């Protein structure tokens, strides 16, 4: 009986990954759970230079979720390598480094800085999907051709597995995932947040000072699940599902839809110990249902005719 999974060459002891931007570099959540029980942590989205992020109000609650516009506040890739990478390594969870650029040159520079640390890093997660910064990221991630061109350039610069995290804010996520696959990506991570807005009726201004923000939490789960299934049907590389997962049943749904592993994000902000509870529940589920390999569930969805 095993809940270990493989994402291409990357072996994870469980399919549970903490999503970028919801777990920092692991330090805060380590107070609430044993990180070594997780498959991996995906770091806060890193930029080439440190970023203060957006100013003013950054969060608005929604039914079953939240909008955020943090805007990639992070210490920059150099400070990450100096002070955070070793912490992530010693946590005992797999290490995924999320990189977010303002331009193709930023991504190239960051991948070249991270490549020498390949012994400590399990995968790079290319963030082509942050909705809260004005340049790069989601702009690149909205065009299959731009994704393909950049991934194929980065592919030549590192042997680290490249996971491409895609935005749902496109007409066809199948097309953008094909672009990533054609460029040589090792896996697709989907979805990042959905662009949304909240309005203060007293001031008639957006509640968020960035005007819009990214919607996450259980409210996005049906959208994410459908997109994971679309991607699974469109490409041959593994899919890592993400979007509103809060229970072990949600994990199973995402795996059946085609995910090889999953990322948990917003639920951790409400119940910081939940990811490890889900690991325990997945083990129990496999035992009770006589499932030898949890990974055998991936892509077993049978559609109605």
């Amino acid at each position, binding site marked *: 009986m095993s809940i270990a999974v493989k994402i291409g060459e990357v072996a994870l002891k469980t399919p549970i990954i903490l999503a970028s*931007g919801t777990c920092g570099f692991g330090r805060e959540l380590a*107070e*609430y759970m044993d990180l070594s029980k997780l498959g991996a942590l995906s770091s806060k989205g890193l930029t080439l230079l440190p970023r203060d992020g957006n100013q003013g109000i*950054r*969060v608005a*609650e929604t039914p079953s979720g939240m909008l*955020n516009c943090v805007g990639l506040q992070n210490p920059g890739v150099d400070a990450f390598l100096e002070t955070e990478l070793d912490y992530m390594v010693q946590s005992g969870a797999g290490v995924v480094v999320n990189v977010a650029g303002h331009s193709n040159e930023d991504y190239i520079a960051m991948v070249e800085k991270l490549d020498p640390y390949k012994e400590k890093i399990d995968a790079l997660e290319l963030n082509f999907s942050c909705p809260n910064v004005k340049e790069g990221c989601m702009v690149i991630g909205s065009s299959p051709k731009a994704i393909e061109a950049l991934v194929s350039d980065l592919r030549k610069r590192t042997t680290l597995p490249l996971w491409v995290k895609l935005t749902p804010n496109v007409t066809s996520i199948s097309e953008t995932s094909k672009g990533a696959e054609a460029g040589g990506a090792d896996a697709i991570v989907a979805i990042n947040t959905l662009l949304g807005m909240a309005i203060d009726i007293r001031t008639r201004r957006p509640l968020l000072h960035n005007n819009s923000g990214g919607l996450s939490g259980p409210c996005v789960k049906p959208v994410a699940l459908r997109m994971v299934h679309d991607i699974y049907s469109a490409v041959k590389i593994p899919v890592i599902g993400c979007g509103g997962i809060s229970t072990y049943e949600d994990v199973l749904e995402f795996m059946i839809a085609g995910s090889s592993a999953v990322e948990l994000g917003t639920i951790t902000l409400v119940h910081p110990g939940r990811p490890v509870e889900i690991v325990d529940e997945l083990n129990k589920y496999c035992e009770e249902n006589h499932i030898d390999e949890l990974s055998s569930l991936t892509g077993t969805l049978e559609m109605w005719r």
Partner: protein
Amino acid sequence: MKEEYKVKLIQKEDLGPTCSVLTFICPEIAQTAQPGQFVNLSCAYFLKRPFGIMCVDKESNTFSVGVRKVGKGTGKILEAKEGDEFTVLGPLGNGFQFDGIKKLLLVGGGTGIFPIYCAAEYAKKNGIPCHIVNGYRSRNDAFLYEKFSSVCENFDVTTDAGDLGMKGNVMAYLETIDDSELAGATVMVVGPGIMMRKVSEWALAKGLTCYVSLEQRMACGIGACLVCVCKIKVEKEGKEFVHKRCCKDGPVFRAEEVIW
């Protein structure tokens, strides 16, 4: 390992139609909480809501928070009945620093009076001389008036309406305090942003050490999500401020660090 605790509401004391003190049993919080720390309390909606701790009772293993209706979440919490269960994270954040403090001037306003009460109880227990100035709108919302009076002999009040204590806001009162009384005092202020800013400016101009407890919209409350940041001064080349997390690096900051 820290946990999210399931706690039972054992007492609900209504202070007014939209404000109550809620008391919960939770040994982990009751035994370790410090004045100025907060808890993140579940409500009927998605995110938890942060509340400054008003008091703890280590013998009965309880802690109390003051809740005033400011939106739907606090409204739902105020509908709770004794016996209802909540989930809670806490104690969270950095509280007030009392090391080496000789005397205290505590200034409270709005829901800031609840954590100020916690600091007042601490001062009494530890024999720290203390003067409290709370600003209220009117006599009707002079919450905890009796409790403050019993925990501190030197308790003064201002009201906007002028029907209790001095008419005006807390600044009107503070301006009347003699410099000889202020010498060597540490100021702790919790209340609306504009009040904390004015009190900070006054205290710093007098050369006093001053602490403020900042408030921000929060999500996780434990420092992971970065939505509750505030601007804190830094002295680095080409930089004026850093974004620090209200929940994890604060909520208590030294007044001179804060960019309002």
